[in-house]
């Protein structure tokens, strides 16, 4: 296991994991420090970070980056449509 971990140095997936963890801490900081006045902006930002992370997991961990185009488009469509609908609901309802 340690040998397998050592082989990951400079690996794309490891870089993606660091990005995901960093974004998670940024999300928590942003969410916990928010004030009532900026809730709408912070809410949209939190959703944007969440769906960027979801896309990273799909493209890099689920290997959809090298999947046939229709499958990749279905996933990209899911991310884009879900994010857009949630933002619209969040701002309008």
């Amino acid at each position, binding site marked *: 296991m340690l040998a397998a971990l050592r082989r990951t140095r400079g690996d794309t997936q490891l870089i993606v994991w660091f990005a995901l963890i960093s974004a998670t801490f940024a*999300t928590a900081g942003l969410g*916990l420090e928010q004030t*009532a006045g900026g809730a709408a902006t912070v809410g949209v930002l939190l959703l944007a970070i*969440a769906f960027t992370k*979801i896309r990273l997991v799909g493209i890099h961990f*689920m290997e*959809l980056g090298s999947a046939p185009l229709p499958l990749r488009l279905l996933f990209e469509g899911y991310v884009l449509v879900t994010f857009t609908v949630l933002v619209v609901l969040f701002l309008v309802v």
Partner: protein
Amino acid sequence: MSATVADPSIQANDKIPSPERRIPGEEGLWVFLLGDMAIFALFFGAIVVLHGQHPAMVIASQHALHPLLGLLNTGFLLTGSLFVVLATRAIRNGSSGAAGLYGGAIACGIGFAAVKAVEYASLIRDGHTAQSNDFFMYYFVFTGIHLGHLLIGLVLLTFLLTRARKAKPLTPGQRVFVDCGACYWHMVDLLWLALFPLLYLVR
């Protein structure tokens, strides 16, 4: 001109495929995964609508949650996903360490379930149950369904760990199963990445 048509090597070169694109796992798995993700998208929408309709109740309820436990659980799932990525690569290549890496992913999954149990117990002890209000109903139902997915993922990872302990190379069928197990586990991770901010952080 006729020589180019007659030469089979040239004909073959005309059809050089683009870099290999393959479905991770199999098509049926993706029908299930995308269907499941669509159902969770409805859950996400329900939470956002509740935010809009009853903001005071949602914010008051969110104060009873434990965001640091949610943060810890996000770390468990992301790290578990990294372990699964590395384990999948190791088992495909027949290199050593796949079993240990699956073990690491299972440990992360158990860690997530344990933290969730602690959080549920703490909330219930403080008098917050699924009957308390709509927010807590959504919280317990949606995170409970997600936890169910995680437990199924742990069973799959245990099968994969058992297979990884064998020295024999993967058969094509086993290779598909390895990919399916990995994609399912990543979907469990992916769903939590939306549930965490929606339930704990978005005001």
